[in-house]
């Protein structure tokens, strides 16, 4: 155990360092998701949404809020953890961690826990917006916290993996541009898959983002397009795989130790 968790102060320090970084670049990390969400709520929820009767038995604006939270949690968590790792490698200050008595588990946990805290903070801000603007709050806070945590762990770990693999900042954006953003947008942020043609609906079941959004929306509406157990199993499975890969890469020192 000592080899894995022998330095709790080191772990706390890394988490604190990541949060210091977050608040040092608050205009890049915290405010953009809040402003973007406000715009989405205004344009889609309030302006266009008034013409849509209801989705899954709730108003369109209420349907929209959990999707928007998940969109920002996914995007923010991945980009923050990948850019922090990559910048550390690029500027070499990650060597401060590499020469210290910190295990790979502690390093990965540090980035992941900071990612979860950051995600919860962003989600809380947007949830408050949702409560104020469209009067919607989660029905199941336990599921709300569980889903955000699982998704934030998954995307923090993916951020570590791609932050390690990237040779330039451009490489980090590849996953966001070509995979994460398209899959999130077609994964049910703006509409229920029940509205899609049968073939597209069937394909959507293979989109992991659909399961994340569907499970999270369940915490607000009490309904989902697929059973909650299915969505949570998909998200948990992917999280375990992603964290395992991030741990193996860090323990082997991939692109960290020569």
């Amino acid at each position, binding site marked *: 155990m*000592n*080899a894995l968790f*022998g*330095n*709790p*102060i*080191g772990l*706390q*320090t*890394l988490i*604190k*360092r990541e949060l*210091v*970084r977050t608040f*040092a*670049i608050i205009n890049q990390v915290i405010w953009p998701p809040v402003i973007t969400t406000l715009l989405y709520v205004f344009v889609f929820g309030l302006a266009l949404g008034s013409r849509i009767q209801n989705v899954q038995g709730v108003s369109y604006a209420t349907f929209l809020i959990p999707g928007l939270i998940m969109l920002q949690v996914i995007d923010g968590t991945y980009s923050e953890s990948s850019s922090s790792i990559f910048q550390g490698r690029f*500027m*070499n*200050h990650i*060597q*401060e*961690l*590499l*020469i*210290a*008595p*910190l*295990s790979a588990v502690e390093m990965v946990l540090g980035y992941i826990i900071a990612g979860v805290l950051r995600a919860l903070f962003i989600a809380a801000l947007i949830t408050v917006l949702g409560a104020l603007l469209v009067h919607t709050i989660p029905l199941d806070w336990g599921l709300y916290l569980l889903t955000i945590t699982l998704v934030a762990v998954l995307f923090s770990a993916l951020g570590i993996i791609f932050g390690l693999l990237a040779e330039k900042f451009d490489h980090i954006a590849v996953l966001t541009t070509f995979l994460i953003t398209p899959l999130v947008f077609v994964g049910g942020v703006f509409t229920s898959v029940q509205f899609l043609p049968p073939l597209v609906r069937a394909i959507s079941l293979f989109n992991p983002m659909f399961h994340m959004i569907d499970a999270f929306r369940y915490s607000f509406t009490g309904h989902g397009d697929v059973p909650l157990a299915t969505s949570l199993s998909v998200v948990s499975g992917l999280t375990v795989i992603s964290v395992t890969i991030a741990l193996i890469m860090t323990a082997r*020192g991939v692109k960290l*130790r*020569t």
Partner: protein
Amino acid sequence: MDAIAITGLVKRYGDFSAVDGLSLQVEEGAFFGLLGPNGAGKTTTINAIVGLAKISGGSIELFGHDVVSDWRAARTTVGLAPQEYNFDRYLSIRDILIFQAGYYGQSGPAVRKRADDLLERFNLTSKAKEVYTKLSGGMKRRLTLARALIHQPRLLILDEPTAGVDVELRLELWDFLRELNRGGMTIVLTTHYLEEAETLCNRIGIIEAGRLVALEETAALVEKQTQGDVLAVTLDAPVRALPASLQARGARFEPGSAVVELEGIAPAAIATALGEFERAGFTIVDVGFRRANLQDVFLELTRR
């Protein structure tokens, strides 16, 4: 006890061996200089000691702790001041020290007090709340040293500690390093300033192509590897080539230099040697004698 015990260290990058069977010991309390030409394997060896490079073969122990199997205990003993500045740009100068101590498992009022003392000692107190990009080159060099010391290591490793600093600061840093060493800290440094190694280090290891070519007490090394005093003949123009008669006497020159040196020449042979310069068509503008130094040893060993 040895502060560092390296046994048969091998570090390969593909087919290239950056370190090739290196063995050396550094006693606790020593001030040790690790020298070698560029690409000899000095930084790779340091990286293997501190955990930045994965070892391909052999072993390294720090105060009896293996850096692979007992890495946590081994790393706690070392402070590294790298040549390149690698500070965290999101932290203030004071926080760079406090967070570094945190990574080593240390926190609380004692750490904050130590950080303030180090900032004071290195004249950085007025910059404590700034980020490192606001510091001058000399200040960054001092901060590198302060950060390496914040967790109170028993072994301090300095990679080119005075690169790019002015003479005044260099002398100041030398005094500080001597003080640390007198206090019992083991210090290992690599440097391109051979005068620095000769002045500070009581023991020197010279590596070339990843192998140890010399390991001695500094004074003994200079005495053993050189042949006495050096005759330095300054000509009126840079030397391109020397006649065979002077080459046979071991005369040497740096490319582009007008100074030719003959090591260990007998007093009786000086006049004849100077005559050979004249016969070869050179014009002598100055002749001097100096004591052989570490640079002569270095050139002798690394030119073989």
